């Protein structure tokens, strides 16, 4: 189904009625699962993912495709092992993607390497942080949603980290590959836009401009990269705000419910 990009230039509205710099609704929860060390649930539009973190714990016997070890050989730091399970019912047509699918392995290794750079893995030598991600529903920006969910779950698991690793996608209107000066950058692509337009996934470290992950899989003029990257990095800052709110709200609720004691130095925490 071709995307009618001519409509965009008329009203400057995208297929789902958003403006160029609007994120889709992000809904996130942490501590969704009692038995896990850390867990989260994240929706970016209709993309829905769940994450469960186990560890840091002693590495068990290696079994199956545990995922991509970021640290690999050296035992001085914890290994981040990621496994991504894409549910068969997650896309419109049921498609079974094997766990050894190369695309899946690439996703796993990207997430593992991105997290390992932010988590303080040197505090946990000889151990494993097992991150398992489940994709329940897909509507574009899959890698971004997975990274965000994994970050939230790691926060919930209480693993020290430099800052949130937050991600979102950015694209560019018009598929015309040659220099089209009027092409506008777009923020947060849905599935339909992802199919039709050039786009990239960006993950940054917190509010900084430092890019941890940059994945572009479509053909695009080099001149448009700057605009897309700028919009993407800006989107990441917005995502960070949202995720931070989720974590703070949960923390506040836990203090109010008496699940946890108010930490030291938090006396001025706003509890209303």
């Amino acid at each position, binding site marked *: 189904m071709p995307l009618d990009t001519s409509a965009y230039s008329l009203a400057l509205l995208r297929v789902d009625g958003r403006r160029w710099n609007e994120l889709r609704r992000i809904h996130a929860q942490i501590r969704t699962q009692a038995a896990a060390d850390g867990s989260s649930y994240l929706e970016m539009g209709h993309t829905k993912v769940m994450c469960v973190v186990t560890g840091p714990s002693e590495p068990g016997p290696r079994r199956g495709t545990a995922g991509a070890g970021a640290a690999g050989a050296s035992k001085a730091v914890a290994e981040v092992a990621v496994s991504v399970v894409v549910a068969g019912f997650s896309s419109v047509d049921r498609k079974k993607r094997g766990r050894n699918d190369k695309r899946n392995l690439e996703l796993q290794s990207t997430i593992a390497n991105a997290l390992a750079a932010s988590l303080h893995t040197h505090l946990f030598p000889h151990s494993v942080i097992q991150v398992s991600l489940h994709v329940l529903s897909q509507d574009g920006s899959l890698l971004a949603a997975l990274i965000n969910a994994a970050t939230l779950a790691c926060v919930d698991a209480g693993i020290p980290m430099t800052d949130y690793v937050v991600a979102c996608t950015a694209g560019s209107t018009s598929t015309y*590959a040659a220099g089209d000066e009027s092409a506008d950058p777009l923020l947060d692509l849905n599935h339909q836009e992802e199919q039709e337009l050039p786009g990239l996934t960006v993950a940054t470290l917190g509010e900084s401009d430092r*890019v941890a992950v940059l994945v*572009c899989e479509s*053909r*695009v003029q*080099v001149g448009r990269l700057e605009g897309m990257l700028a919009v993407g990095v800006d989107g990441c800052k917005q995502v960070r705000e949202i995720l931070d709110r989720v974590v703070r709200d949960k923390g506040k609720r836990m203090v109010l419910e008496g699940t946890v004691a108010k930490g030291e130095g938090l006396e001025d925490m706003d509890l209303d």
Partner: protein
Amino acid sequence: MPREAEPSLNERQFILQALQENLRLDGREFDQYRPLELTFGDQYGVADVTLGKTRVLAKASAEVTVPYVDRPLDGIFNIATELSPMASPAFEVGRPTETEVLLSRLLEKTVRRSGALDTESLCLVAGQKVWSVRVDVHVLSHDGNLIDAACLAVVAALRHFRKPDTSMESGILTVYTPAEREPVALSWLHSPFCVTWSYFGDEGEIALLDATWREEQVRVGSCTISLNRHGEICQIAKLGGTPVEAVTLLQCTNTALTKVKEFSSFLDKKLAEDIKRRDKGGLMAELSAENDR
């Protein structure tokens, strides 16, 4: 599982310290490639790329098969990579390592998904017969920067490749041997090349091109950018690692573009040389009445 020997702490320190002082172990500039060589085999579609001590051989081949049911008008195009224990003891046969998976994904995204080869031109009879083009990548020696070398080898092999000529007459497909008719080149749309940056330092502030295997073991992150000489990005992959300033990435992309243009003219030159070599004497030799006797 066998593992690569790790650089010792001293070695690691030494390399990093030198980089801080703007020095590389082999005395290159930060954005300088090792000496690049490309040779073609006697057969069409064999390319051998040497980049310093890294050596990659790619061989293209084609056969007639049945197309996929969902794409009856498209030919089949595959890139197969295999890292054998010959290249490094860390590679095992039959068990793809992370390096191998990422390499094959990158090549696929760079060459296949960017539409470098016109797969529709490979169709012979819609829904029944198509050419299946396959490139096998063999890593003969691994001294870092496999991706750039492998990508160059794949593109060179495909552009050098000639598939047998065919004709359709009243529903009968004839495939001619090279003796009957001169084989034809593939319908090639653009030539993408990979340029891989390696980052060093706590903030990833030092960026190197064409890292050796030693340097790759010490780096904190990498970013592979694929472009063609028209300035089109075919793929960018910075898969995790230490975060790098967005501005640095943009600069890296621009430098990559100049490198890609160099690769592109280098390949064009080599291809032209090869044609000249094959065509020794050219038409005049053929017309000559003299024989070798």
